[in-house]
């Protein structure tokens, strides 16, 4: 099990270190909201009903508690 975590850690570190380090002026595309890593504010309503209609919640920056979700 421990070796599994070591391998995972190595993969993550390799991934991080192998990436190009961009300067601020090179982040024209990265800073574009089209590929922003968070959900759009309007998606909150969809994420809410999905939490109610499905057993899974979380892992997406959305709500993980509060409210009964009982309807």
């Amino acid at each position, binding site marked *: 099990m421990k070796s599994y975590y070591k391998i995972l850690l190595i993969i*993550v570190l390799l*991934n*991080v270190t192998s*990436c*190009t*380090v*961009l*300067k*601020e002026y*090179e*982040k*024209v*595309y*990265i800073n*574009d909201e*089209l*590929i*922003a*890593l968070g959900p*759009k*504010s*309007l*998606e*909150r*309503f*969809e994420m809410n*009903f*999905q939490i*109610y*209609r*499905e*057993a*899974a*919640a*979380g*892992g*997406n*920056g959305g709500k*993980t*508690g*509060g*409210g*009964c979700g*009982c*309807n």
Partner: protein
Amino acid sequence: MIMKKNSLILLFSLVSTILLGQQKDSDTTYEKKVLDQVEIEFLSSYYEQDGKHGAVGGGLGSEKIQDVTPTLVVNIPIGNNGVLTVDSGISAYTSASSSNINPFYSANSSGEYDEDDDKYEDDDDKSSKGNVPNTYSGASTSGNLSGGPIGTPWYASSGASRKDVLTYVSINYSESSEDRNRIVSTNLYASNEYDYNSLGLGAGIVGLFNQKNTEFGVKAKAFFDQWKPIYPTELHEYGKYGSNFLNSGYFNNVNVLDQRGNNTSTYYPSKFKEWTSSNRNSYTASLDFSQILSKRAQILFNLDFVYQHGMLSTPYHRIYFNDVPKHYIGLSEFIPVYETNQNAGVFRLADDIERLPSSRIKIPFGTRLNIYASDVLAVRTFYRYYYDNWGVTSHTASVELPFRISDSFVFTPSARFYSQLQADYFKPYGMHSSKDTFYTSDYDLSGFTSTQFGFGVSYKDIFTQFKVLGFGLKNADFRFQHYYRSDGLNAIIYGLSLKFIQN
């Protein structure tokens, strides 16, 4: 009372933070601010669903819901480094399923029912006039038609529980370091429904490394919720009057029918007990890691650990056992078609309510990979694996393809796929045994797949030419989504947001 107190605390926090922030403003005005102007965003959605597995009917009956959610989000710059966000709104809904907490109505009033003063019981009066289904008019005079109450899980009742309003406010304050490599945030949340209150708080820290190409975030949240339990009418009466309940209160002079449609006095839901503790607490720890992969791609990993404790069941979800006799109120001729939507006049009496364990651990792991495929097309992907200790595992995958039509407009088609294994405690309508400890017939906890397709249209005006009261329109977004669940539930949702900035 608790809500009023919480509201006062939140209001005081808001006002004092704004005042402190304004003092800071006057001292330092030369550094680049995290947020330059006040932003106001109006959001709203309309949601509608229908299905045939209402949880209030024990996994059977209408699931019709309409929900409208006007929302206001205000972002206020505090000094150079801080942003205060006040997010408030309501969710006003009508629900056919929860209307059937009391499903019974009658064409002939027979007097008083309940001396309680809660709004659900007021409408439990046998004289309440429901939206009598059209099919009812041709019914025969068997069962309880001669003045007695009737009901059906396939239609909404007129009880007050058919609608409710959730009101909430969330206040978040975030502060960035001077070099913008650290962001700390705190959050307060409060919400109120007729039978449910929630109070939440949270804090988080984000660190940016590697010339802001790498980001780590840690967050913790806690919600302290409180039920005001409401039980199905027949169980409420049993809880209130005990062994003589069939001759008391609501049941006084009401005929209870057996499976053959004959009058009986054998209905006795002995497994039902009212909840003695109605708290529900949720604690969440979140880890975020994101990395810029290239000039056009970035990735995010998110791991949550959620622990919930307390009353995790819903107190008005009925349960019907397969090893006890069936009992009904209403018109006996509809008993043979009880499980179909031809049933316009009989309702089966519950054997118990949903019982679920008092703790639950949820571990979702999500990842997003977003790529700028060309100058006009981006690809946004999301995958999540979810595990919990109730036996549910699920997979979620979604993709969005934002396509830039012009400098101002973006069109975004999207698709989402979801599958889950059922919870250990789920069985369909009438399949649970009275010997079980835990049981639910809520299809949200069943095994199913679902698909969601839709699109969004975004408008952006960097010059904010359209102005209202000194604020210019920065963004307008519209989204439409259609959701289909393999158990037959269908839903649609429309959303609209307008974001203004102070000029």
